C-alpha cells in the first residue's frame, strides 16, 4: 500500500484552515454572544462600537439579508427547515450572534466586545412562530398488518447530547477576489454544500463563490454544518477585506453542534419466540434550530428495525425545538440513539423469556436479500441486504469473547448490533475527474474531502486498480469547487462507495482512452513499457503533443441507487465496581462487515476510532445544559472524555465479502461501529450485576443508583453486615 498520503498526515506544513488564517493578514471576525435566550437583543451603543479604533464592521440582525437557510450541509432542497438567517432577530441559544464584528486585531475585537451593551427583551411562547407547540415534525408510520395492540411499556431509554470534540475548531477565511467573486477557505466536509448555502444566505448565485476546502483536522459531522462560513463571507463583502475567524473550544461547545438528545421507547409483540411486531417511538430534541432533526430521527429507525424480520413495523416520532445548543450531524447519525433503544430492548426481552440474548436475535435476523427500507412498503425491495451472514459474524464474536465461559464476580458480557448505509440512499451524487497530465501523472479531482478517514488513499487505490498503474503516479486534488468535480461531500459514510464509484468509472474511461491511444500511435516505443510497449509518460506526452493531440480525460459520475449496509456486531466485556458503580470495560470484540476492505489498516483505524467515540458516548460524555440554556461543560476541564489509559483492549474481526455494487467490493466503514457500543455495555452491565441503565451516559452514579434501588448492592449488604 502506498504511504505518501499517510506520510502527509504527519506533516507540520501549513495545511489546515487555522494555518491559512495564521499566515494570512486580514481582519479578525468575532461574535457578540447572546447571554439570554430566547430574547430579542438590542445593542444600545452600536454607533459607539462602530467608532471604536480598529473596528471595521459591526453588523446586527436588521442589516443582514432576510433570506432564511439551514446550516445543515445536505443536498438541495434540504430536509431541514430554513429557520435561520445569518443573524437572527431572536436569539435562541447562548452564544448565538447578537452582532458580528470585523476588527483589525484580536485586541480591538476584545475591546469592542467588552464595550458592547446589549438589552434583551425576553420572549415567552414558542421558539419559532411557525411552530406554536415547538414541534417541528411529527409522524406515525405503520407498515404491515396489525396483530393487535403491543402490550407493556417496552423499553424506554434517554440519550444525551455529545460533543464532536474534533480537535481542529471551525475556522474560515473569506476574501473578495478581483471581479467580485467571493473566495472561502474553510475546514469543511461539504465544499459544494457550503457554496450553495452561503450563496443562499448572501442572496447571490453559487457561481459567484469559490470554496476551497483545506485539510480537515477532524470532522465527525461537525463540519457538515455551515456555521462560520456565512459569517466571514458577510463581513468580507461588507468590508472588502480578508476576514478570518476561528472558534475557540468554548465556542465549539456553545456555537458548534451536538449529537441529538432524545427519548426513545421500543415495544414488541411476540408469538412464542417469533417476533410479530416492533414499535419504535422517538422524541428528538433538535435544539433551537432544526438542522438534521428529522433525518436523524428517521435514521434511528432505519438503522435498527431492518435487522429483525417482522411482519409489522410501527415508527412514531416527533422532533422538537428546545433551548440549549443546536444539534446536528454526528458520526452514526441516529444509529447510536436507535441502537441504544432497540438493542437494549432485545436484551430485556431475551432475559424475560429466559433466553440467551444472542440466540433470540439469531432467530429473527435479517438475511441476504431482505429489504433495508422496511418503512417504505412501495420501494422496500429497492435496497436489500447483501453481505456476510450476520449470524456467522455474531458467532465469531461470541467465540472470541468467550460468551459461554463462566463469568467472574461482577463481570458480564453484552451483545449489540448496528448497521449503516454507504451514502444517503438515493440521495448521493459525485463527479470525479481523472486527467492524465503531460508528465504522466494522473490527477484525480474530487469534491470529497479527506478528514482523516483516508479518502485520498482509497481513491488512489481505486484509480490505480482500475487504470492498472502504480498508486505512486496518482495525485488526488480534493475539495475546490472551482475545479468542477461536484460532490455532495464527505458524510453518511459515502466517500468510498459513492465518490469511489465515480473515480472508478472515470479511471475506466482513462484506461480505455489509453488503450485507444496505444492502438493509433504510429511509432513504436523502445522502452518496453506496460502499455503495448509504451510507458505512461510516453502516452502522456503523445496525448498532448502526438499527431492526434487527444488528451486523456475521464469524467465519472456516480448517482447510485444502492447504498449497501455494512454491519457491526459488538460484544462488550465489563467489570462493575459494585461499591461505587464504576464500570471498567475489559474488552471489546467487534465483528465488522464492510464488504471488501480496500485498505485494511485504514478500516481498522475507522473501527477503533468509532468504538472509542462510542465508548465516550456510553460512559461519560455529555454536554450538560442548564434550564436557562447555559452550556455547563464549556471546556475540556469540564467535559468528561476518556483518556488513553481508559481505552480497553479491542479485537476487530473483519470479514471480506465483496459487495456487488461497491467499488472493488467495498461498503462504507466510517460510522458503523459507533452505535453498538452503548447498548452492548448496558447489556453487559446487566449481565454482570443485574441492573439496567437506560439513560446515557452510563456513569458510575447511575449504575450505583440502580444497584441501590434493586437492593442488590454489595456495598449495602456489607454495611448491614457491619452493623450486625
Amino acid at each position, binding site marked *: 500500500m502506498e504511504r505518501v498520503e499517510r506520510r*502527509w498526515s504527519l506533516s*507540520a506544513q501549513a495545511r489546515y484552515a487555522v494555518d491559512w488564517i495564521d499566515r494570512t493578514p486580514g481582519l479578525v471576525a468575532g461574535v457578540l454572544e447572546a447571554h439570554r435566550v430566547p430574547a430579542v437583543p438590542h445593542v444600545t451603543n452600536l454607533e459607539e462600537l462602530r467608532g471604536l479604533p480598529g473596528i471595521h464592521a459591526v453588523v446586527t440582525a436588521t442589516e443582514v439579508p432576510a433570506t432564511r437557510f439551514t446550516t445543515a450541509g445536505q443536498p438541495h432542497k434540504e430536509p431541514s427547515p430554513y429557520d435561520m438567517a445569518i443573524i437572527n432577530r431572536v436569539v435562541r441559544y447562548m452564544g448565538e450572534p447578537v452582532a458580528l464584528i470585523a476588527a483589525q486585531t484580536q485586541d480591538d475585537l476584545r475591546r469592542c466586545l467588552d464595550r458592547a451593551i446589549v438589552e434583551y427583551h425576553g420572549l415567552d411562547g414558542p421558539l419559532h412562530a411557525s411552530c406554536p407547540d415547538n414541534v417541528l415534525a411529527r409522524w406515525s408510520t405503520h407498515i404491515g398488518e396489525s396483530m393487535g395492540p403491543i402490550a407493556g411499556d417496552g423499553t424506554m431509554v434517554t440519550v444525551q447530547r455529545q460533543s464532536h470534540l*474534533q480537535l481542529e475548531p471551525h475556522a474560515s477565511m473569506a476574501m473578495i477576489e478581483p471581479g467580485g467573486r467571493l473566495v472561502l477557505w474553510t475546514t469543511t466536509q461539504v465544499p459544494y454544500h457550503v457554496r450553495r448555502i452561503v450563496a443562499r444566505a448572501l442572496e447571490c448565485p453559487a457561481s459567484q463563490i469559490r470554496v476551497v476546502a483545506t485539510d480537515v483536522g477532524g470532522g465527525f459531522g461537525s463540519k457538515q454544518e455551515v456555521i462560520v462560513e456565512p459569517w466571514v463571507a458577510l463581513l468580507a463583502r461588507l468590508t472588502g477585506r480578508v476576514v478570518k475567524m476561528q472558534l475557540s473550544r468554548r465556542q465549539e461547545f456553545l456555537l458548534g453542534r451536538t449529537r441529538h438528545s432524545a427519548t426513545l421507547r421500543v415495544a414488541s409483540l411476540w408469538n412464542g419466540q417469533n417476533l410479530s411486531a416492533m414499535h419504535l417511538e422517538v422524541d428528538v430534541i433538535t435544539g433551537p434550530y432544526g438542522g438534521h432533526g428529522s433525518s436523524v430521527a428517521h435514521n434511528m429507525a432505519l438503522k435498527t428495525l431492518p435487522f429483525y424480520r417482522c411482519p409489522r413495523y410501527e415508527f412514531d416520532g416527533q422532533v422538537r425545538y428546545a433551548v440549549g445548543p443546536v444539534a446536528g450531524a454526528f458520526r452514526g447519525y441516529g444509529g447510536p440513539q436507535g441502537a441504544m433503544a432497540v438493542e437494549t430492548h432485545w436484551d430485556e426481552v431475551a432475559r424475560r423469556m429466559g433466553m440467551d440474548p444472542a440466540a433470540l436475535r439469531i432467530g429473527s435476523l435479517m438475511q441476504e436479500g431482505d429489504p433495508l427500507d422496511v418503512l417504505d412498503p412501495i420501494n422496500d425491495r429497492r435496497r436489500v441486504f447483501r453481505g456476510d451472514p450476520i449470524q456467522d459474524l455474531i458467532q465469531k464474536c461470541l467465540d472470541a469473547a468467550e460468551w459461554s465461559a463462566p463469568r467472574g464476580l461482577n463481570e458480564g458480557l453484552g451483545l449489540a448490533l448496528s448497521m449503516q448505509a454507504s451514502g444517503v440512499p438515493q440521495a448521493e451524487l459525485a463527479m470525479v475527474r481523472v486527467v492524465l497530465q503531460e508528465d504522466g501523472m494522473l490527477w484525480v479531482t474530487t469534491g470529497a474531502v479527506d478528514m482523516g478517514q483516508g479518502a485520498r488513499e482509497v481513491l488512489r487505490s481505486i484509480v490505480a486498480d482500475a487504470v492498472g498503474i502504480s498508486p505512486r503516479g496518482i495525485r488526488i486534488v480534493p475539495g475546490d469547487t472551482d475545479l468542477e468535480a461536484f460532490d455532495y461531500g464527505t458524510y453518511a459514510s459515502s466517500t468510498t462507495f459513492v465518490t469511489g464509484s465515480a473515480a472508478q468509472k472515470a479511471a475506466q474511461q482513462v484506461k480505455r482512452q489509453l488503450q485507444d491511444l496505444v492502438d493509433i500511435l504510429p511509432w513504436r516505443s523502445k522502452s518496453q513499457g506496460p502499455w503495448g510497449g509504451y510507458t505512461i509518460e510516453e502516452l502522456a506526452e503523445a496525448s498532448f503533443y502526438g499527431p492526434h493531440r487527444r488528451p486523456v480525460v475521464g469524467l465519472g459520475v456516480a448517482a447510485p441507487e444502492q447504498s449497501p449496509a455494512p454491519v457491526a456486531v459488538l460484544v462488550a466485556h465489563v467489570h462493575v465496581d459494585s461499591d461505587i458503580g464504576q464500570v471498567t470495560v475489559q474488552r471489546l470484540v467487534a465483528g465488522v462487515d464492510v464488504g471488501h476492505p480496500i485498505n485494511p489498516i485504514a478500516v481498522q483505524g475507522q473501527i477503533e476510532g468509532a468504538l472509542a467515540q462510542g465508548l465516550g458516548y456510553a460512559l461519560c460524555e455529555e454536554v450538560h445544559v442548564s434550564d436557562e440554556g447555559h452550556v455547563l461543560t464549556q471546556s475540556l*476541564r469540564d467535559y468528561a472524555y476518556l483518556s488513553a489509559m481508559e481505552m480497553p483492549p479491542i479485537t476487530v474481526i473483519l470479514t471480506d465479502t465483496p459487495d456487488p455494487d461497491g467499488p472493488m467490493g467495498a461498503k462504507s466503514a466510517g460510522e458503523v461501529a459507533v452505535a453498538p457500543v452503548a447498548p452492548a455495555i448496558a447489556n453487559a452491565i446487566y449481565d454482570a450485576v443485574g441492573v439496567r441503565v437506560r439513560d446515557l451516559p452510563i456513569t458510575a452514579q447511575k449504575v450505583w443508583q440502580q444497584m441501590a434501588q434493586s437492593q442488590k448492592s454489595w456495598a449495602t449488604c456489607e454495611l448491614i453486615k457491619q452493623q450486625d
Partner: protein
Amino acid sequence: MHTHRVQLAVNGKLKTVTVPADERLLDTLRTKMDLYGARYGCGTGHCGACVVSQEGVGLVPSCLMLTVRLDGAAITTYEGLETDPLMRDLQDAFVEEGAAQCGYCTPGILLSLHHVLSQDPVDENVVRESLVSHLCRCTGHYASVRAAMKVLQRKAGMKVAVD
C-alpha cells in the same frame, strides 16, 4: 499596547520577537515564526495539540505560556525534531500503523512519544500514561500505542543484535 522584546532559541536558532504581554507562545510560533506543528485544540492545556519542549522543563502546552516569560528559553517544536532518528522511526511506525488519521493531534503525540521513548525503562503502561496528555478523537490512541511499541521492540531487537 505595551510590548516586550524577547529573545529565545527555537529549534536551535536564536530569534528575537516583539510581543504584547498576553501573547501565547503558540501564537508566536504560528504567526511570527511560520511554525504550524503546534496547533490550537482547547486553550486549556488538556488536548496536547500545542505541545512543545522547553529545555530544562520538558513538554509543555504552548497555549498556556506567555512568550514574554520565555526570554532566554530554548524551545523545540515538532519541526525541530523532524530529522531526528528516533522521530523518523516513530513516523515510520505511525505510517505503518495508520496512527495519524486527520493528523491534527499528531505532532504533539509524536513529541510525547519521542520524549517517553528516550527514557528507560519503558513499557506499554508508560507509553499510555504519556498519551494521557493528548486527545486523539480519530483513533482512540490504539494505533499510536501500537506504533510506539513497535519502535520499542525494534530498539530492543537492535540492542540484542549489538550485544
